[in-house]
Every structure is written in structure tokens, then in C-alpha cells.
């Protein structure tokens, strides 16, 4: 546990340092044109966009998917207060990212501008309200999706599909804005104007913090708080109806015994696990968003050449890098889609069923790995074939593009299940706490990320060496790690599962 705490702390420090470095770099450009206020404007907009994106697909889960609903709703509390407490949970989740972006940016601004004492006061006061509006905007969309879905029989599936449609639409929309304006990295007043036009609260924020406008500060805080109260009150009136619609199963009393299909224990566990996966929208959205983005990106690259994409985002060497590093880029999306890192925790109170069953625990663990591979492998193969066409890769590059992500898929799934069995959380009331916030998910994400950053770094540092050779070496190493993990599950699975 101490090691875990140190690891998390180190991760936080690393993010803070990277964020500070980024702010410092961007600030140098703004310093030259004498518009340091733009630093805070852009960073505030960035924090808001992060808040919006990370909330949109978990809003429905946090607002409606918690096990102690009956207990909470039977207490003498107003429904709007229950809604408010759920939104505040989303707020706390996002506050971390806001602090990671804004605190370093604020420090850089203070170093460069040397502002009055009032700056620090206004900055710290406004800081806490930045995530509120983006979260509410995302929650409104989440609640609307839930409201629409709750009217259908397959409410969960509809909710998942609608959320993906919204995410892809917002992505395409923002891409088109950037593409048309061609200002993604051209940090200028044009960009600030666009931000202020699209998100007037950013202008208010800059006025308040950089120009010490008390009126703007009060208006910024008031708008954020009032929107929050209004949302909680309005959703409070429809809350029970939406929850009932989402959780009520369509029951009939007409079942007659039919012939049953018998399967092997592994196949039965696999089918059960796949059904578990599909039954939770937060689980699906959180672990398959990477694969959906990969698919969208691969399709987009069929229509936009990598050279054009490079021009668009002003990285002229992009097409070069992309064909060399595409296997690692695809693998990054795969490691983001690790379902196994929460699959044991999600057993929750049901874990007794598996623990008391006469099946080797290795079989149980491997069935969870198989479900993860079912989600990552087919999309990975389809995307890689599309990337082969769009990037016009050589036969060796094509082979690596196909094989390296598959090796990483095995690696990510095996690593996730081991991390989860070492760091289980079976006592949960909301799936969000397992899928989004559990130590196992964070640790496996961190390990997955490190496992890709190192090969990326090696490939970039050794650019004079044949890239295919480096990728081949990485593939062999990861395969060796996979076989070690597989063996570990075979020899220690029983004991680890018993200790749960």
C-alpha cells in the first residue's frame, strides 16, 4: 500500500511538472506579444474541455447507477439534494484535473507577470468554480441520454450508443472548427477570440483574475452556482422516473422450459463475463471509448492523408512518424481499453459464486482475459488493415502494424487481471468507483502507459536505427512478459483468488 501511495504521488508530481512545463512553454509565446492573460484563458478552456469530455460518458452512471439508491431515496432528503450530491461527486472527480492544469498555469502567470496580491485571492476563489459548468453541461447531455434510453426496452444499449454518437459528434465538430481556423498551435488573439466566443465564461474568468474585476468574478461564480442549483432542481423533478425506467427490467411470467445448451466451464464463464460487460454502460463506455476512437481515426485517415493531417496540426513529419510508430499508437488505444483491471472488483458481492464453484481459478481469470481480447482484437485488426491502406505501409511495416497491437492486447489484458487481483475492491455501491476510480484501474493504466512511453522514447531517440528492428525487439520483449504473466496466473491464480 505504501508503494502504491508513493507511485500515485509520483504520478501526480509528474503530471504537475509536465503541466508546468507546458504552461511555461506556451507562456513564452504570449509574453512576446504581451498577452499573458491568454495563458489563463487557454488553460481554463483546456481544463473545461477535459472536464466536459471526461464527464460526458460517466455522467449517466454517476447520476443513476448506484446500489444504495433505495436507501438514499428513502431518507428524508429532497430529490434535488440527492441529484446535487451526485453532481458534486462528478465535480470532485474533475477537480483534480482542473487543479493539475490551472495551478501550474497560475504559478507561471504569477512568475511572469508578478501580479498584485488581489490576483492570488481572485485566482484561488475562481479556481473551484471552473469545473462546475462543463460538468453540468456534460451531465445535462448524460441525463438527456438516460431520459431517452429509459423509454426503450434495451435502455442500456441505447444509452451506450447515444453516448458514443455524442462523443464522436463533438470530436468531429471540434476537429472541424480547428481545421477551418487552422489555429490549433498558432497561439494568437484569434484563438482567444474563438474561445471567448464559444465559451463566454472564459472571458469573464480572465477579466476577474487578470484585471481584478470584482463584478466579473461575482458574475462567474454566480452563473456557475445558479446553473448547478437549476440543474439539480430540474433533474430532481424527473429523477425517479428516469431511474425507474433505466433499472426496471421488462418482466413477463411466460417462461416455459426449453432445451438448454451445455458448455464447458470456460465457455460458460466467458459468456457470463461478456454479458456482465454489456450490462454496464459505464463499464462499456469507459473501456471501449479508446477502441471507438481508434476506429474513427482509422476511418478518417482513409479520407484525409497523413500528410494533410500533418499540415493541419502543423507537424510536417507526422506522416513519417505515423507509419513508423503506428503500431505503438494503435497499442496505446488498446491499453486504454483494459476491461480486466476492474473485472474482478466488479464481481462485488457475487464473488462467492465463483469462489465456491469447482472450477480452477486460472480458468476464471483467463475467461476475463478472453473477454478483453474479444473487445480489443477485432477492432484492432480492422483498424490496422485500414491504416495499412491509408499509410501505404511496406509489407514489414504492415506485419508489425498487425502483430504488435495484438501482443499489446494480450499484455494489457493479462496485466489488468493480475493488478486487479492484487488490488481488489469488492465493497462498492457504485460501479463508477470500480471502473473509474479504483487503484487497480489507475495502476494498470499507469503501467500500460509506461510500457508504451519507453518504446516511443527508444524509437524517437534511436531514429538512425531501423525502426522495424526496434519494433520487432519491443514485440519480443512484450511477448516474453506476457508468457511470464500467463505462467504467474497458472501457478498463483488459485491462491490469489482464495485470498480475495
Amino acid at each position, binding site marked *: 500500500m505504501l508503494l502504491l501511495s508513493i507511485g500515485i504521488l509520483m504520478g501526480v508530481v509528474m503530471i504537475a511538472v509536465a503541466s508546468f512545463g507546458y504552461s511555461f512553454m506556451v507562456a513564452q509565446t504570449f509574453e512576446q506579444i504581451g498577452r499573458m492573460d491568454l495563458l489563463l484563458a487557454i488553460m481554463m478552456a483546456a481544463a473545461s474541455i477535459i472536464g466536459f469530455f471526461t464527464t460526458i460518458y460517466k455522467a449517466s452512471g454517476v447520476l443513476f447507477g448506484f446500489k444504495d439508491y433505495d436507501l438514499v431515496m428513502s431518507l428524508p432528503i429532497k430529490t434535488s439534494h440527492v441529484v446535487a450530491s451526485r453532481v458534486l461527486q462528478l465535480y470532485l472527480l474533475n477537480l483534480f484535473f482542473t487543479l493539475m492544469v490551472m495551478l501550474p498555469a497560475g504559478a507561471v502567470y504569477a512568475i511572469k507577470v508578478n501580479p498584485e496580491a488581489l490576483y492570488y485571492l481572485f485566482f484561488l476563489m475562481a479556481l473551484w468554480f471552473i469545473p462546475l459548468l462543463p460538468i453540468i453541461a456534460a451531465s445535462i447531455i448524460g441525463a438527456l441520454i438516460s431520459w431517452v434510453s429509459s423509454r426503450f426496452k434495451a435502455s442500456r444499449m441505447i444509452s451506450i450508443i447515444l453516448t458514443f454518437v455524442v462523443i464522436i459528434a463533438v470530436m468531429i465538430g471540434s476537429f472541424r472548427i480547428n481545421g477551418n481556423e487552422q489555429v490549433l498551435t498558432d497561439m494568437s488573439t484569434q484563438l482567444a477570440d474563438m474561445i471567448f466566443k464559444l465559451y463566454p465564461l472564459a472571458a469573464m474568468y480572465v477579466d476577474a483574475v487578470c484585471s481584478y474585476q470584482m463584478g466579473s468574478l461575482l458574475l462567474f461564480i454566480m452563473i456557475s452556482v445558479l446553473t448547478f442549483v437549476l440543474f439539480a432542481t430540474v433533474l430532481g423533478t424527473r429523477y425517479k422516473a428516469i431511474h425507474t425506467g433505466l*433499472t426496471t427490467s421488462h418482466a*413477463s411470467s411466460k417462461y416455459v422450459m426449453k432445451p438448454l445448451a451445455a458448455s464447458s466451464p470456460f465457455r*460458460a464463464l466467458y459468456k457470463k463475463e461478456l454479458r*456482465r460487460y*454489456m450490462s*454496464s454502460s459505464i463499464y462499456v463506455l469507459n473501456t471501449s471509448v479508446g477502441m471507438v476512437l481508434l476506429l474513427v481515426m482509422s476511418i478518417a485517415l482513409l479520407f484525409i492523408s497523413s500528410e494533410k493531417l500533418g499540415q493541419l496540426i502543423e507537424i510536417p513529419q507526422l506522416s513519417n512518424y505515423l507509419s513508423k510508430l503506428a503500431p505503438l499508437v494503435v497499442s496505446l488505444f488498446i491499453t486504454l481499453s483494459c476491461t480486466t483491471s476492474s473485472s474482478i472488483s466488479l464481481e462485488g458481492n457475487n464473488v*462467492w459464486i465463483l469462489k465456491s464453484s469447482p472450477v480452477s481459478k486460472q480458468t476464471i481469470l483467463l475467461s476475463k482475459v478472453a473477454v478483453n481480447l474479444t473487445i480489443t482484437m477485432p477492432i484492432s485488426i480492422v483498424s490496422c488493415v485500414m491504416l495499412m491502406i491509408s499509410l501505404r505501409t511496406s509489407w514489414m511495416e504492415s506485419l508489425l502494424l498487425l502483430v504488435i497491437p495484438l501482443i499489446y492486447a494480450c499484455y494489457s489484458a493479462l496485466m489488468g487481471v493480475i493488478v486487479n487481483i492484487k488490488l481488489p475492491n469488492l465493497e462498492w455501491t457504485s460501479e463508477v468507483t470500480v471502473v473509474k476510480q479504483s487503484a487497480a484501474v489507475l495502476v494498470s493504466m499507469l503501467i500500460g502507459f509506461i510500457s508504451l512511453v519507453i518504446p516511443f522514447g527508444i524509437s524517437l531517440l534511436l531514429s538512425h536505427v531501423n525502426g522495424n528492428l526496434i519494433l520487432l525487439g519491443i514485440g519480443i520483449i512484450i511477448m516474453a512478459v506476457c508468457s511470464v504473466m500467463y505462467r504467474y496466473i497458472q501457478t498463483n491464480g*488459485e491462491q490469489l483468488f482464495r485470498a480475495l
Partner: protein
Amino acid sequence: MLTIKHFSKSYKGGKKAVNDLNLVVEKGDIYGFIGHNGAGKTTTIRSVVGVLDFEEGDIEIDGISIKKDPVACKTVTAYIPDNPDLYDHLTGIQYLNFIGDLFSVSKADRESLIKKYSDAFQITASLGNMISSYSHGMKQKLAIISALIHKPKLLVLDEPFVGLDPKAAHVLKTIMADLCSNGSAIFFSTHVLDVAEKLCNKIAIIKAGQLITHGKTEEVKGDKSLEDVFLGLIDND
């Protein structure tokens, strides 16, 4: 059928939930395990069925140690916990079929036994519904059916009558008696002393992790009611 030898279980902080428990359940026994809340009944039961790990002592099922060969022990054991937490995302029939697969029950056996027991508990018509739509009692019935379809040699139940309607409770008692007359053994905890007195041929009473009495029901209760004996033992010291 079940031998518990010097079984002890401590929780974090060193508190002993069960201390040096010794118990033998033979074929044909319906063994009642009685004690107040927190006495150590559930801890013992969960250890017997391999859900809870333990360090001291040993538990043997059909002569096999649960520590040495847990899979072999679990193949002949069925367990019903005090709270039937089942997979909400499956339908009743999917759950029963899943358990049938895990215990490698033949297709013919599982079809006939599911029909037999779900008809007896009157939930056949609801088997196509999601478990999330089931009441507590229906979940309990489903858990009981899932325990019976693989014809266990040892049936371990933790408070099996909680949540059952009177008809279902009667059906369960009949099934328990039938199972034992066919050579299986049953070890179960209950707070319903009337049921224990009428149903069990053997009784064990546990208090604060210590077995305070056990043996044939008639010997344990003598000429008193089981309730009087239990209250007398629990209230002592």
C-alpha cells in the same frame, strides 16, 4: 462427509472469530448450526465451502482437504449464502444453466432437475426474467435450485429459510429430508429454533467463536425445548 478439525479463524486486528472448532457431519445428517449474531456461524460456513481462506486447522469434505484439493471438494458441495447475491445481469434460466456448466451437469440431468425444482418452488414461469427483477424470496429460491441441480453430497446453507414464503419453506424442508435419506449430508445455520428442533438429527451451538455443545438433537435438548436450552447456554456466564 464433513470433518472440521481444530479450525480457527482470526480477523485483522487479531480478534478470533472462531476458536478451535471440531465437528463431524456424517452421511444422512441434517446438522443444525445455531448461535447468536456474530457467534462465528457464517465464518465457519464460508470456510467450509472455500469462500473464506483460513490458516489454522483443516476442513475435509468426503475425506479430501479443502486446502489441498479445493476443486474436488467443491465438486461435491453446494452452498447457499445468507444473502442470495446472484448475477443481476442474467435471467434465472441463464444463471441455472451457468451453474450447470460450472458443475458439468449433463444436459438431460440439468433440464429435468431444473424443471423439477423450479416447478416445486413455483418459479418456472419467471425463469426467463432478469434476476434484477426478482424479489429477495425469488432469488433465494433460485439460489436453492442452483445448489440442488448438481446433486451435491454435502449441502451447506446459511440461514436458508430467510425470505421464503411458508409454502417454499415447506418444500425446502421436504427436499432436505429427501436428500439426506438418499445419503447426502446437510450442514446449515438457522435462527429458527423450531425448524432446527424438528428437522435436524444433530445440533451444534456456538457462542463467541467457541463450540459450547453439540451432538444428537435429543441429547442436546434433553427434556427441554431447544429454545430453552439455547437461551440457557447463551445467557450463562
